[in-house]
């Protein structure tokens, strides 16, 4: 609904997705900068994410794991390349060992996030993702295969309840 454009280039293994929100750039940036908010949208309901280290300063490493339906816990990390709050974030997203150190046996993908005001209290966010290979895409997708399925009403309620308490 809020996604305004999607451009996919199979030959370049690149996807650019643009979305607009009824919020300020600062509010949208917070979705990335606050780990507690981040973990409520990064993983699909079937693969919720937990961020165990989170600092968006350039050169920092963000560490997270996801918990799958069968209890599997793939670990991941971001290497923050660029951070310019609340406008721009560039990071390399890779797989990690259980202790959080990068697992270089797996390829990494690069995400470029651009956040800009478009007037009337609205903000546009674009995500540009580059993959080194189709294998890299398959591995990323294996962590969120169930994505695209409708959110169960119970899960929405659960988030609402947590929000009300917070």
């Amino acid at each position, binding site marked *: *609904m*809020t*996604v305004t454009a*999607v451009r*996919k*280039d*199979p*030959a*370049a*293994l*690149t*996807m650019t*997705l643009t*979305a607009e*929100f*009824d*919020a300020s750039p600062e*509010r*949208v940036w917070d*979705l990335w900068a606050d780990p507690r*908010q981040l973990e*409520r*949208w*990064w993983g*699909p309901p079937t693969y919720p994410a937990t961020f165990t280290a989170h600092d968006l300063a350039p050169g920092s490493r963000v560490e997270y794991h996801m918990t799958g339906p069968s209890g599997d816990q793939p670990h991941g990390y971001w290497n923050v390349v660029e951070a310019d709050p609340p406008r721009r974030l560039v990071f*390399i997203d*890779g797989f990690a060992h259980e202790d959080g150190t990068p697992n270089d046996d797996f*390829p*990494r*993908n*690069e995400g470029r996030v651009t956040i800009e005001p478009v007037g009337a209290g609205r903000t546009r966010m674009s*995500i540009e*993702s*580059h*993959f*080194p*290979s*189709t*294998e*890299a*895409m*398959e591995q*990323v*997708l294996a962590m*969120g*295969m169930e*994505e*695209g399925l409708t*959110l169960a009403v119970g899960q*929405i309620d659960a*988030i*609402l309840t947590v*929000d*009300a308490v917070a």
Partner: protein
Amino acid sequence: MTTTFDADHIFAALADATRRDIVLRALSGHEGVAELAGHYPMSFAAVQKHVAVLERAGLVTKERTGRRKVVCTNIEGLRLARGLLDEYEALWRGRIDRMTDLITRSKEIDA
């Protein structure tokens, strides 16, 4: 194929329009690296490098026809990439929906 990825270098090459053009030209599967190199204002070595990146990504293959080696676009690889991008889009659409929900809810709480 076993490949070691050097993400930084590969990402830089992926952003290059030349690479996309090579994939299109290689659909016909008639040209070798030398012929391909003739289309671009860059060195043979530079074009060879782009082809190598495409090869590692599974988007082109080098096939022997007679005594020549030609670069062929891997249609299956492209199709696979297309399907994977569709799935990746679904993943991000889900994320955007959840982001929107979070923003909406934080407004309701502030109100």
